[in-house]
């Protein structure tokens, strides 16, 4: 009973906050609705018993990606009228992407539920003794170890690529030399002078 209630609560919130993400006029509000959608999706994952994925969704997407995203959006100076102007010309393209995504979901779920994959999927149930993390770790680090490492290398290349593309050596920038700062002692910087009253200091 509570499960069903929780499912409908999370599901309604995911769908409505997803819709509000694209409907709200203020981009900052859009990002916040997106975060609410992530959060409720994590709730749905917990209901499925995939608590590890739910936690990762919150840590990675809500805790890191969305923060940076929100940050970028807050810094932007967006002209709302200009955003609205392109709406009609981009509409067919957007609809095309939506149709492709819908077709992929329908094909995927359709094949999974009626096709021959079904038996293979259900013939290898997860050992109920294992926790989520152990089951995922067991698969990732044994059967899919090379794919897993390949994914790691792809991410590494992407990270280095982003740094190479955006980094430029600028002249005239003041940097801090921490070793030099730590070497500095009071006797290098401070001098006590016993100065007679009414006279300036010779430096």
């Amino acid at each position, binding site marked *: 009973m*509570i499960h069903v209630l929780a499912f409908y609560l999370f599901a309604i919130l995911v769908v409505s906050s997803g819709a509000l993400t694209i409907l709200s006029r203020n981009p900052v509000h859009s990002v916040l609705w997106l975060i609410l959608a992530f959060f409720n999706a994590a709730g749905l994952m917990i209901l499925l018993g995939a608590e*590890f994925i739910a*936690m990762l969704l*919150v840590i990675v997407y*809500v*805790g890191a990606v969305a*923060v*940076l995203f929100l940050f970028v959006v807050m810094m932007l100076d967006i002209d709302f009228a200009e955003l609205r102007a392109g709406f009609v010309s981009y509409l067919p393209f957007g609809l095309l992407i939506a149709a492709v995504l819908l077709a992929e979901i329908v094909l995927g779920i359709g094949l999974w539920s009626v096709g021959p994959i079904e038996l293979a999927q259900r013939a290898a149930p997860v050992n109920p003794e294992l926790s*989520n*993390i152990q089951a995922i770790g067991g698969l990732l680090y044994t059967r899919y170890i090379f794919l897993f490492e390949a994914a790691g290398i792809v991410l590494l290349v992407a990270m280095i690529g982003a740094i190479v593309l955006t980094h430029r050596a600028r002249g005239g920038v003041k940097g801090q030399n921490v070793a030099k700062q730590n070497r500095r002692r009071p006797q290098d910087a401070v001098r006590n002078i016993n100065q007679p009253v009414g006279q300036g200091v010779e430096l």
Partner: protein
Amino acid sequence: MTAFFQGLGLPFEGAWLLSTIVGILVIALPLMLAVAMIIYVDRKIWAAMALRRGPNVVGPLGLLQSFADGLKVFLQETIVPSASNKALFLIAPIITFTVALMAWAVIPFGVGVMVSNINVGLLYILAISSLGVYGVILSGWASNSKYPFYSAIRASAQMISYEVSIGFILITVVLWAGSFNMSAIVESQKGYYGFVNGNFINPLLFPMAIMFLISALAETARAPFDLTEAESELVAGYQTEYSSMAFALFWLGEYANVILMCGLNAILFWGGYLPPFDWAPLYLVPGIIWLLLKMAFFFFVFSWVKATVPRYRYDQLMRLGWKIFLPTSLLFVFLVSGFLMLTRYS
């Protein structure tokens, strides 16, 4: 507790719901009282180290000072700046406060004494603590004022930076315990060398204990990492435009987070509810007493640091997070997992 309510004739789901609500109240209400007292203790320690008296007028020894402050703040007018984004402006302190309370669901106060004994307890804490930054960012942006916005920028960069190294530090503990479950992590610290309870005695985890303490200071934006509310530069940081209860919620949430971080230090590295030594008579003292004593000690350390250490510069803060803590904690993940591969799993 679910069994008790089932004994009263409730169906399982109703009993579970009721026992969870009771559990939440049993933790949240004393926590609020603890926050009020800990603010007083913080001010007293700070005053003692500055050779002042601290609060000593309201009630005996000034014990009621926090309640007087609370009443004063409660009676003030809530001012919402006219140029602010009103909904977000009011939601931000609520987020900070709620998130500060949420993480307490998985803190073990004794053997199996916790609201929710989930097997991803530590990940849950990491997830919830990563939400804390939203209250700060939203308040900074919604205030539509430049000092809060600077503060929000600083806060989010700081929290994200230190979360990375905190994540690696937690991984070393999880590797050693072999579980994400908070109770299992505490139990795994039993009987080092036959008599000490606590990961801190482990030479591979002791440096992590120190780094976690420092990262906890940075994560809760306590001195010397309190650049988000550096009063000489940013007025009061992201709280500048807040008044009345909205301000109080930030205040309460901040201190609840500090107590949580003290608790995490105690649980992850200093044996949590276990007594300091693995000696039978010490187990006669209830586990919650040991946990509270350890938390009180760490809170004293937090106040001590606040009273003695000058504020960091922002570039020093970032350097410490990314160039020192991140590589060191990564190295220790390697060392701990390598050691375990050689000894436990070979």
